[in-house]
């Protein structure tokens, strides 16, 4: 491929038109005297339309455009974890070093540190027959994560030589019979899914420690979830909770068009967080991508692809990866903005007609798979959606809901009452319980699915009763229905509400969740008995031990105390019957 050079013909915001080159679609080109990075997104006669990943003011027609022959790719290898990237895999700390606190343009930075030496331990031997995706060596990348160096896709053969030792990621560690040299680093074009053997049905839950999510609306490892919600309803906090607490081995967090200050909060907070599963810093298993709302729009468009490619790479090593994208609406808006600069015929609300197919392609890259090396890995994708005005009939929400299997519907009304997480239990859903129930029966409790059904039925009944209460007041209801309302209130205030900022309450494991749910049902049962035996509803509800049970969840060691608290509550309820 000759390095043919073209010139700029036209500039309109982030979209630049060049003439004199005939690149491939999605080829990366260098634009202008400063060599700004851009990607070809349309070919039109002899004109090539380029989206530029950096600010374009000050650039003139007539400046050069140079082909690179490459499509937009990421560098994959040891050094990804703990890193913080912009949308096109430039490490932000590196950018700070070279250009100070403001992001100027025309600066290139490798995604991985090419000089850093890693301890490579070969696991393949001379004479082994190796194929794509097979692990040939290991590197302890962080304290908790072992990086498995794989044969790059489309490469394979007999190992001629392989050596353990200290290398940087571009040095050859393995040579095949046909002379192919393999280094620790490989590159992969972000817009192409990485290959695998087959997709499995997801049947293991992704445990998040968030009661309403795990218990009522679970997500499977390798599944997809959408969180639509109006601004201020706690999307970001929910996403961050998932990034902190989910039991995936690797977390990829994409801040796509996010607020700078909030991104900073994440960047500041994460390095101090401890992974509850390993007691090591959470950053050890995290890759972050931060493209704030005022950073160039084309890089925002690319950021989700950069993120998911990195996630797939870790999946191929046999890890369970959770990817959070906050927010996919900002990504869709980036598509819209670029589409309108291209003067494409718009679809609904100005979004391009290919919006829903792009969304589907993205979510389809999730899944639990048999990797090329025969192991089992997964990518779970959790996408936040920010519907304008909180109205989920808009195209991005609808396009997302058609694909994802779990819907966590955030509700501004709940947020206003400071009910957090403000996930509406009436309209949210998960299509996974069917597939996961066996796992719960085997691993948590044989009656786990039944308890869940009882809890959600109570909430459903409450919403029907509330309609009556709105009209006649709660005193007009018969006493058993008043009790149902009390039980439902207990579900909401004690179980569904969870304080993300509280040291203890922020995470509940599945066992505890199960016991808390059982405690509520136990209260219901005892209270029914007591009332039938002549106790007053008010006395039953106000037994001090119930308050202790509910407040107790904020204290350490709650899981040990909960059964005592429940029996104490039951004893007091019994006593209230005798008092009458």
């Amino acid at each position, binding site marked *: 491929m000759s390095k043919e050079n073209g010139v700029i*013909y*036209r*500039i*309109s*915001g982030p979209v630049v038109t060049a003439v004199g080159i005939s690149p491939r679609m999605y080829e990366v080109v260098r634009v202008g005297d400063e060599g700004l990075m851009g990607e070809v997104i349309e070919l039109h006669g002899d004109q090539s339309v380029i989206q530029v990943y950096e*600010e374009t*003011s*000050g*650039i*003139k*027609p*007539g*400046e050069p455009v140079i082909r690179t022959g490459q499509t937009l790719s990421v560098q994959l290898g040891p050094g990804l974890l703990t890193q*913080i990237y912009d949308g096109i895999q430039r490490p*932000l*700390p590196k*950018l*700070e070093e070279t*250009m100070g*606190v403001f*992001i*100027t343009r025309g600066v290139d930075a490798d995604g991985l540190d090419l000089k850093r030496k890693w301890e490579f331990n070969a696991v393949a031997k001379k004479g082994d027959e190796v194929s794509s995706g097979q692990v040939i060596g290991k590197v302890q990348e962080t304290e908790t994560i072992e990086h498995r160096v794989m044969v790059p896709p489309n490469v394979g053969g007999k190992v001629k030589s392989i050596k353990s030792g200290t290398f940087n990621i571009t040095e050859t560690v393995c040579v095949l019979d046909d002379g192919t040299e393999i280094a620790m680093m490989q590159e992969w074009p972000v817009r192409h899914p990485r290959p695998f053997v087959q997709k499995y049905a997801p049947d293991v839950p992704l445990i998040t420690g968030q009661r309403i999510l795990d218990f009522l609306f679970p997500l499977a490892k390798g599944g997809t979830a959408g969180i639509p919600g109006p*601004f*201020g309803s706690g999307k970001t906090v929910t996403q961050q909770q998932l990034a902190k607490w989910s039991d995936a081995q690797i977390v990829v967090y994409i*801040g796509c*068009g996010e*607020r*700078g*200050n909030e991104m*900073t*909060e994440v*960047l*500041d907070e994460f390095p101090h967080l401890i992974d509850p599963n390993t007691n090591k810093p959470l950053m050890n298993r995290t890759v972050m991508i*931060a493209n*704030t*709302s*005022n950073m160039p729009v084309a890089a925002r468009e690319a950021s989700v692809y950069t993120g998911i490619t990195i996630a797939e790479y870790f999946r191929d090593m046999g890890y369970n990866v959770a990817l959070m994208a906050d927010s996919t609406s900002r990504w869709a*808006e*980036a598509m819209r*903005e670029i589409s*309108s600069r291209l*003067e494409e015929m718009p679809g609904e*609300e*100005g979004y391009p007609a290919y919006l829903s197919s792009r969304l589907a392609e993205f979510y389809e890259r999730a899944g639990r798979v048999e990797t090329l090396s025969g192991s089992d890995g997964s990518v779970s994708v959790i996408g936040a959606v*920010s519907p*304008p*005005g909180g109205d989920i009939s808009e195209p991005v929400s609808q396009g997302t809901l058609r694909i994802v299997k779990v819907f966590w519907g955030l509700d501004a009304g709940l947020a*206003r*009452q*400071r009910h957090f997480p403000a996930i509406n239990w009436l309209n949210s859903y998960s299509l996974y319980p069917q597939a996961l129930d066996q796992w719960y029966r085997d691993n948590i409790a044989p009656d786990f699915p039944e308890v869940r059904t009882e809890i959600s039925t109570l909430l459903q009944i409450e919403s029907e009763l509330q309609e009556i209460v*709105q*009209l*006649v*007041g709660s*005193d007009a209801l018969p006493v058993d229905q008043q009790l149902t309302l009390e039980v439902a209130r207990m579900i909401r*205030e004690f179980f569904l509400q969870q304080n993300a*900022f509280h040291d203890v309450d922020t995470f509940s494991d599945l066992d505890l969740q199960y016991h808390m749910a059982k405690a509520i049902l136990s209260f219901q049962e005892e209270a029914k008995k007591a009332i039938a035996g002549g106790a007053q509803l008010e006395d039953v509800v106000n037994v001090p031990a119930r*308050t202790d049970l509910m*407040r107790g969840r*904020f204290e350490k060691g709650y899981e040990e105390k909960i059964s005592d608290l429940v029996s104490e509550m039951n004893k007091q309820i019994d006593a209230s019957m005798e008092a009458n």
Partner: protein
Amino acid sequence: MSGKEYRTITDVKGPLVFLNKTEPVSYGEIVQLMLSDGSIKNGQVLDTSDDQVIVQVFEGTASVDRQTGVKFLGDVFKLPVSKGLIGRILDGAGRPRDGGPDIVADEMADIIGAAINPYSRQSPESFIQTGISAIDACTSLVRGQKLPIFSASGLPHNDIALQIARQAKLVGSDDDFVVVFCAMGITAEEYNFFVHDLERTGALENSALFVNLADDPAVERLITPRLALTAAEYLAFEHDYHVLVIYTDMTNYCESLRQIGAAREEVPGRRGYPGYMYTDLAMLYERAGLVKGKKGSITQFPILTMPGDDITHPIPDLSGYITEGQIVISRELHQKGIYPPINVLPSLSRLMNAGIGDGKTREDHKSVSDQLYAAYAQGRELRGLVAIVGEDALNERDLQLLKFADIFEDQFLRQSRDEDRSISEGTLDLAWNLLSNIDTKYLVRLDQKWIDKYHPTEKSSNEEE
């Protein structure tokens, strides 16, 4: 670049001028138009190619003709900045409006501004006391935040903005704020109100004003906030000032954005606003914050009036997705005669948790704030119920909550325009007093230890023991 003058205008459409056969012109370059009567207009390149250049003219295109000379100045728009900006009043294009001399530039700063590397930001966590209980207790402001006021026509948002500008201070610090005020399309009357108030309180000499009034060119509004923020960045990050940027009215800014979009025949997004409005607004709002290694800070108070009081309108909606919360002004409270009529329920400060608590405001702040919200929200809901079934149908708890909602509005929200309440004795103690109207067993959001320590009646009984 040469001072070559072109007379190749082909089309004039609204605020846009189209010309052809130019030398290569850069995107974003500034432009001068020489009219036949000798007057000069300024503009900026919006689209450039070998064949055609599109220029947006800030002062409007009145009396531009095909003979008008067009000069490309070879540079992007820059503002002369220096400490001398403080105490000055400039027009919407950055020229002196107060009759004073030109600004002597220490530096020429690009007004587009570069994005702050998220890695280089510092988390905002210093509480700013505004002296307004509703804000301090429920939507606490921190230094480096951008917190818009969502208002509507006929509501006292300007009074609130001014009260904040007057009273804002860091607890336990003497650092004062420099106010950068940016007016976009407001009336002369509103402008005078701001200037008189700033003058009256002596704040004017600590302020820099950028003023585009309702009868000034609409397109100029697109650069006015960029000038103001460029000045703010310079003062904050070169001279360590803590800058409070107030801009009003964002709705006028967005209207101008729509006007340009329409003139360029762009594919419109929602309600005719351009599809890139989110990015465009983000490039303003995101110029708030603190950066590592610099002492100064930029805190933003954009004011926007929601057309038709509609919070789902694209302007408040997109703003809300970028800013760190919002303060919502309520017509209902205003009509009840309550000042400041802040509806705390839809109001929010996303950075609040970082700025409050022990050592910052007070240890019980978060609990109290949650409890106020919860109790007030339920009390307001009950008002609807009472309208149908009457108070008699309510139980004890509901009656207390109902009464609390009234007391909360009347005593907590309501304060006078120059009443400056301190966070601890003024606001939080008042909150405890009001909450003591509700039986403690219904105050489920309050930790027992705070009840023991701060509850006016429960506390005293403890001390007697």
